Structures are given as C-alpha cells and as structure tokens.
C-alpha cells in the first residue's frame, strides 16, 4: 500500500474526522480523499512535478494528488528564487527516476549545490512505521507542524499521521508564538510536534513558563536535524516532566533511523537511541555511521557518481562520526564535512561563496559557521574587496537573497585584506573554523 491508499482508507473508516487544520480552514479525511482524486487528473503517470511548497491544506491535496496519479512529487522551498526553480524544473523534466519513486526532496549534499534525493513509496511507509513504533503516533493525536513541508523533518510527520488517521495542525512557521499556543488549545486528546533545536531554544527563551501549562496535554516532542544543546534538553525536561522528548537521527538520504527519549531521567547528550524496526546501524572501522534498511533513499537525481560515493551495497555511508554503546544506542560524536547546519538546514559554504563572488567588488571570500544564540550555528561571510570598493553589507545580503534560499544568506559580514588559502590554492576552511571568528 502507498501512503495515499491509507488516506482513502481513512476516508472510509473515519469520513467525518478532521484530517487537517490550517488557520480558519479544516478538512475531513473524506473531503481530502475526494479533493485528491479530483486534482489527480492534473498529473500524469511517471511525470515529475516540481512545485513551491506552502504551509497549507492545499499542499496536502497537491502532494497526495501527485502520488494518486502515479507521478513524483518534488516540493521545493517556498521562497526558492525563480532562476533556481527553472534550473531544477529543467533537470527534472529530462530525468529518469526508478519505478516506485514517490518524491524528490532537495537537500544540500556533502559537496556543492543542492541535490535531488529520490524517495520511494516503500521508504515513506518504512519511515511511517518507524515513527509509529518508535514514538507512539496514535489515532487520537493532533500533530502540529510548523516547519516547511518540503523539509524531511516536517514532511515525514505527514506519513505516520496519515497511516494512523490522526489529525494535522499546520502552522505558518513559529513567528507568531501565540498561534502555536492556539494550536495547543485546539480540542484534542493529546498533542505532539516536531521542532528544530533553534525553535526549542526560542520557546524556552521567550515562552518557557507558558509552555509548562500544557505539560499534561503534550504527548511528545521530537527534535532533530541539528544538535540540541544539553542545557536546552535539561530545561525542556523540567518544563514538560511527563512528555516524551525525542532526539532523532534522520536525514533526507537515510530516512528516519533512530530515536531517543531524553526525558528518561538520564538525559544523555548526543544519544540518539536504538535503530528503529526498519533500520540497522553499522559503525565503519573509521568510526563513521552507516545505515541500512527500507528507509534509505534510492539515490540522487541524475548523479550516479555522487550516489555511488555514499550508497553502496544497500548501505548509506554518512560523514557522521558515532558510536554504539553496550545497549545498542547510537551516540553522535561529530561530523566530517564542510556543510554548515544552520538550525536544521544544511548549507554548503561553497554555494554561498560562488553566489557572493558575482557581487561587484568582491575579490575573494569564505563562508564559515559561527556560534549563534538561537540557531546554534549561523553563517558569516568574510570578504576581500577590490581596491577602492567598500563593503555594502545589505547590498551583498540582498544580492545573495536573489540567488539563494533565505536560510543560506549569511547574517554576519566581515571585511578582510585577503582570504587565506592552502598551498594548493583551496580555501583554508580549517584555519577559519579554528579561529572561530
């Protein structure tokens, strides 16, 4: 069965139950099923459909309608620049994807530009079953999604909610925290949500006391996509003593692999729990985490060489360094990659540098990650300018915004006489990272 088949099953079993809520709009499972069938006629079997994602019920209708038609959904950032959208559209129009492909999700690979990750229907079902078993998604749950629906962290929650016939509450981000508390007030047996660590930091900083009033209603909260500070983990356990609080090991490429409830009295930093039922973890002799099981991607679109570099013999070799303890729990020890994780969104510094080099007056530059009080890591661009030029910080930021998704635009800028390179001419990332400037 595909996920969309569960949707129609829900329409038969619980036709009047609310499937999703977004602002003033609600939709039942029966209505969703009918709208999906109706919209499916806009797509044809095998077609790859890139579309800008939105935080809306309409997103759900489009996403499921594409699957219903036997087509492939490629949801993209809602603010993706038009030229980048066109570029992806052209690539996908001429791409062959394997039989059984459900989605193509764009993420930043280990090098260079964003890569299209091929996700099968089988992967979606395995992710759903992993989450139901690992975290207890149930039929009477109201799951609040505030993150972008094209990102695996939020998209993957549609899977178990649909499989269980539960209810989704979609929010347009967490800018207005009152809206999040309105979602918690919505009549429901119990709530759950997924937050990137930056959002947990924000909630604890500005609304910790208010959150504690919902201690009996919040069944569980999952975090992932970036490391959660131990102080935030401890504080969250204090604020929500009865809630299951999960740290999850997952990525677009590997799917949902392992999860750990850190509200267990031990609250172990870096612990990501045991592999879930569809997943296996092997630590390579070099200490890197590799994953097996049905949640793995099928490959990268149009890039067999890059696919082969991480996916071999049904195993994904990540650049994460980890250990398994005597109880079989995974512990993350670090990452061996240039990719910078900004509040759960991966950024390849070279993509930012390439975009910055086309700004008038920029002679050389390097993009580095620096500690940020909310997102954990933030981006800083150090720029060397041509003689006679001055650093127009806002102009440069806006230039980057025209070429890149917003989360890839650095917040901090610094002028330097020159950028340090290694003896063979490569940017000396190690030097700048060790300076942490």
């Amino acid at each position, binding site marked *: 069965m595909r996920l969309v088949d569960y949707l129609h099953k829900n329409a038969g079993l619980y036709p009047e139950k609310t499937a999703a809520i977004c602002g003033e709009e609600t939709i039942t499972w029966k209505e969703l099923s009918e709208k999906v069938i109706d919209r499916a006629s806009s797509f044809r079997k095998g077609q790859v459909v890139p579309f800008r994602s939105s935080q809306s019920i309409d997103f759900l209708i489009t996403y499921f309608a594409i699957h219903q038609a036997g087509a492939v959904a490629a949801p993209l950032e809602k603010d993706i620049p038009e030229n980048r959208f066109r570029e992806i559209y052209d690539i996908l129009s001429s791409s062959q994807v394997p039989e059984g492909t459900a989605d193509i999700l764009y993420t930043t690979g280990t090098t260079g530009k964003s890569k299209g990750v091929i996700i099968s229907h089988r992967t979606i079902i395995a992710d759903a079953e992993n989450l139901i078993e690992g975290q207890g998604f149930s039929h009477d749950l109201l799951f609040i999604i505030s993150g972008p629906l094209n990102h695996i962290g939020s998209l993957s929650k549609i899977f178990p909610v649909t499989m269980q016939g539960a209810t989704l509450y979609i929010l347009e981000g967490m800018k207005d925290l*009152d809206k999040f508390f309105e979602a918690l007030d919505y009549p429901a047996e119990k709530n759950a949500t997924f937050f990137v660590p930056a959002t947990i930091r*924000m909630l604890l900083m*500005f609304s910790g006391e208010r959150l504690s009033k919902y201690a009996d209603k919040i069944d569980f909260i999952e975090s992932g996509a970036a490391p959660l500070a131990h102080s935030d983990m401890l504080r969250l356990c204090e604020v929500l003593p009865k809630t299951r609080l999960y740290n999850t090991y997952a990525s677009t490429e590997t799917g949902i692999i392992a999860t750990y409830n850190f509200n267990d009295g031990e609250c172990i930093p870096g612990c990501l729990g045991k592999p879930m039922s569809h997943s296996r973890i092997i630590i390579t002799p070099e200490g890197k985490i590799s994953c097996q099981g049905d949640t793995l991607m099928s490959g990268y679109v149009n890039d067999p060489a890059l696919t082969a570099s991480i996916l071999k013999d049904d195993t994904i070799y990540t650049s994460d360094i980890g250990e398994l303890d005597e109880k079989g729990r995974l512990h993350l020890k670090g990452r061996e990659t240039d990719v910078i994780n900004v*509040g759960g969104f991966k950024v390849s510094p070279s993509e930012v540098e390439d975009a910055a080099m086309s700004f008038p007056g920029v002679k050389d530059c390097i993009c580095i990650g620096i500690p940020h009080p909310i997102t954990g890591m933030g981006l800083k661009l150090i720029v060397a300018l041509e003689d006679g030029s001055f650093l127009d910080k*806002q102009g440069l*930021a806006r230039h980057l915004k025209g070429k890149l998704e917003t989360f890839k635009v650095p917040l901090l*800028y610094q002028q330097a006489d020159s950028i340090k390179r290694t003896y063979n001419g490569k940017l000396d990332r190690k030097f700048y990272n060790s300076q942490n400037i």
Partner: protein
Amino acid sequence: MKERIREILEDALPLVDLDSDFLFKELDSLGVATILLKLSEEYSIKLDAKDATPKNLKSLDSLEAMVKSKLEK
C-alpha cells in the same frame, strides 16, 4: 535611541528593510526572536513572546516605544 536600535538590527538582520511600512511582515520567526534577544541584551529588559505582537513590531518607532515602556516599569 531609535538610531541605536536601527544600528543593532541592521547588523543582526541585514535582509530586513527596517523602514518598511509594516516591519512585522518582513520578519520570519528567527527575525522576531533576534529582535527580542538583541533589544533585551542591549537595554537589560525582559521581553517575552507576548511582546512580539504585530503592533510592537510595526516599525522602529514602535520598537522604541516598547523598549521605553519596559524601561519605565
């Protein structure tokens, strides 16, 4: 004070048009959190999510008014 607020926010949020007719609309959740954080640090005031209303975050003038009212308390 308004110019100091501008200086701080220009530095922290280079993509945001601080002279917009409706500043709140220009911001995302990180932008809102950054404003609360930077202003509470600079002026040693306590700001929480309830202060992050569209009215308070409408313009540099309304931000200045919010900071002044907190300082008076």
